[in-house]
């Protein structure tokens, strides 16, 4: 699929009618637009609503209903639920303060509530189906997948624990699912507390992307009267850095905005780099907003510590070998000038950073070295 040699380029010219990529991964429940749903959520939360984006979002919403309706007539019982799941998920993820994994678990909880199953076994199968639907609807979102997997795993274990009756088990599942939003918020606070030791007075922190956890960390540090300076990358094309810097300046934290390309130039005055993460993968590496990898490379070559702040429910059983070894999350990119149609544009929204470029992970499970991630995942899914 990735053309590396000239012969492939020629091949591509011959079959230039077909749009590149994304199509191959399109399933029946695939989000019909080539812009990943994952990216839309992010964009919506960041509040970067360009007119272009709005139009596409509308198209996307239309597309979902349009494509799902005929299917539901096909298979009455099964898809009634699956339709619910996506709808439910979409409702939840519109709330800006809710992480995607939380929305996924809430959506699955709704499935439990609506379920007419009478045994644990049935419920489990139903949930599995719903989660598969949800996962295949947006393959690009890692925390969605991780959230679903985590919950299903919990359900399986709970059923193995043999509660006396089905209803009390069900209510316990529901209660835990409802609590998950709280767990997520609490995780963020724990991470912020843990990271305080690492922020020393007079340090300079480089931040890439707009991560709720990182923002919480910096907020807590400011509340603890730490004296530090933040360098924000601009985060083209979403301008996440611009948003983050305005948030930080509200808190009176000295902040400087950098072009994404100015990272290497500024690295020598940086004491540490903070990233959030969309997902933490089996190897201990992270998948995060485009540009993370190159910043990590620069930091590594200059011996600067790279810290990742991520809630543990973002740990996912994925193991990308390289950048192309994962479903690309595509996004629109505006260059401000007209791009000739022959020019290809890289539209992927994120990249993979291997673990050797990360120093430590701050998670709600504690401060971890990247090798611990696999340990936790093996314990969970064994």
């Amino acid at each position, binding site marked *: 699929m990735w053309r590396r040699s000239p012969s492939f380029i020629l091949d591509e010219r011959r079959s230039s009618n077909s749009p590149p990529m994304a199509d191959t991964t399109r399933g029946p429940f695939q989000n019909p637009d080539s812009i990943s749903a994952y990216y839309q959520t992010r964009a919506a939360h960041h509040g970067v609503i360009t007119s272009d984006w709005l139009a596409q979002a509308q198209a996307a919403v239309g597309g979902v209903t349009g494509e799902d309706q005929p299917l539901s007539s096909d298979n009455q019982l099964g898809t009634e639920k699956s339709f619910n799941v996506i709808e439910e998920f979409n409702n939840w993820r519109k709330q800006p303060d809710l992480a995607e994994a939380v929305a996924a678990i809430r959506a699955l909880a709704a499935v439990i509530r609506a379920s007419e199953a009478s045994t644990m076994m049935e419920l489990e199968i139903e949930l599995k189906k719903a989660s598969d639907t949800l996962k295949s609807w947006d393959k690009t979102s890692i925390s969605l997948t991780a959230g679903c997997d985590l919950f299903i795993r919990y359900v399986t274990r709970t059923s193995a624990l*043999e509660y006396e009756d089905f209803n009390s088990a069900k209510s316990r599942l529901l209660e835990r699912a409802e609590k998950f939003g709280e*767990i997520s918020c*609490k995780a963020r606070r724990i991470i912020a507390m843990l990271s305080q*030791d690492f922020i*020393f007075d007079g340090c300079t922190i480089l931040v890439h992307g707009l991560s709720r956890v990182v923002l919480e960390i910096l907020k807590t540090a400011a509340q603890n009267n730490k004296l530090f300076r933040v360098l924000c990358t601009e985060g083209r094309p979403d301008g996440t850095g611009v948003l983050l810097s305005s948030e930080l300046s509200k808190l009176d934290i000295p902040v400087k905005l950098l072009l994404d390309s100015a990272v290497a130039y500024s690295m020598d005055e940086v004491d540490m780099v903070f990233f959030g993460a969309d997902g933490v993968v089996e190897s201990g590496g992270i998948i995060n907003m485009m540009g993370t990898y190159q910043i990590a490379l620069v930091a590594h070559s200059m011996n600067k510590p790279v810290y990742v702040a991520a809630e*543990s*429910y973002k740990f996912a059983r994925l193991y990308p070998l390289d950048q192309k070894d994962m479903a690309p999350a595509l996004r629109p990119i505006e260059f401000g000038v007209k791009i000739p149609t022959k020019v290809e544009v890289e539209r992927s929204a994120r990249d993979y950073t291997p673990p050797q470029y990360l120093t430590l992970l701050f998670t709600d499970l504690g401060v971890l*070295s990247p*090798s611990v991630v696999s340990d936790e995942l093996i314990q969970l899914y064994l």
Partner: protein
Amino acid sequence: MPDVQSTVVEFVNKLRKRKIEGSQATAKCTVELLRSVISHQRVPHANQAAALIDAVKAVGEQLVAANPVELAVGNVVRRVLHIIREEDLSLTTAAMGGLDLLDASDDDDVDNCKGIGYPAMSAAVVAAAARSTLRPPSLQTLLEGTPESATVPYTSSSGADSESKTADKSSLTRKLKHDVIEGVNQLIHEIAGCHEQIAEQAIEHIHQNEVILTLGSSRTVLEFLCAAKEKKRSFRVFVAEGAPRYQGHLLAKELVARGLQTTVITDSAVFAMISRVNMVIIGAHAVMANGGVIGPVGVNMAALAAQKHAVPFVVLAGSHKLCPLYPHNPEVLLNELRSPSELLDFGEFSDCLDFGAGSGSLQVVNPTFDYVPPNLVSLFITDTGGHNPSYMYRLIADYYSADDLVM
């Protein structure tokens, strides 16, 4: 009680004045002191474990504050706390098991079990929840409930089941204390025996006609090298002299006394000699949770040189040196500056240091320790075997309770 208090004060003073040196000696003194604290601690009827934990913690805080750089003190205090928690847990589960049996005998009385406060949950679930408090939080338990709620059955456990069985309790109390002291004795034994455990592995790592570089004076390294020598391996040891404390001289003297071929080199020749060396072996002062090492000053230089020439850099550490903390800014925070007089004779320099006459200022830096980041370490050899730096977090999780990490 008063005599315990006075020994605590005495030990704190010793720590503060740096009278005790070497992590093994410190660890041994600490654990012996804690044992006497535990055995003299009067335990109330309810919540004996909590009382012991509080007592140990109170003493532990004093000791750590007396010498925050000697991480072995904190490590040992955490180990003892972990022993108390574990013994308490095993007693609780044993008691719970008895309760379970009781329930099984009269089946109709299920409501009784619920009344105690475990709605529709078997004893196994409670025990599992309690055990999770000993472990650091994990992904597995993320959805199962917040740690606070999990600790509730644990802390109230002794109180809850004692309600029905007052007669049993006094024996239980004595049992806990007895078990804890037993556990602490085992820890003492372990600390005393860690050299032999580590030295046993020497034969696997040192081969015929090899050249070994070491620096600093570590008993563990000495025993390790001698163990290989006893197994009829002949090899040469390069010892960096370790200015300004010259601990390398001390080590070299002991090695020569045991009949090892020893060459003393200056510290500055470490890079020049490293290409002639097959392995660098050092003793750690402390091992951090990320696999980083605090060692005698100059170690980082040797580690960098070893990396440049792809020479294995092996760190020997007894389990009391494993510290559950992640270092931040370790070069500065976990270091100790010694007297400048070890480097410069002030008498000789007093003439040019006459202030106000336009002379510059002089600062003399004499740190004790050095930090080696985990990526420079090839192998850790502990009393439980050889480990990669990336695996140290796991050993630490086995030795300490999550609740005690921050004291």
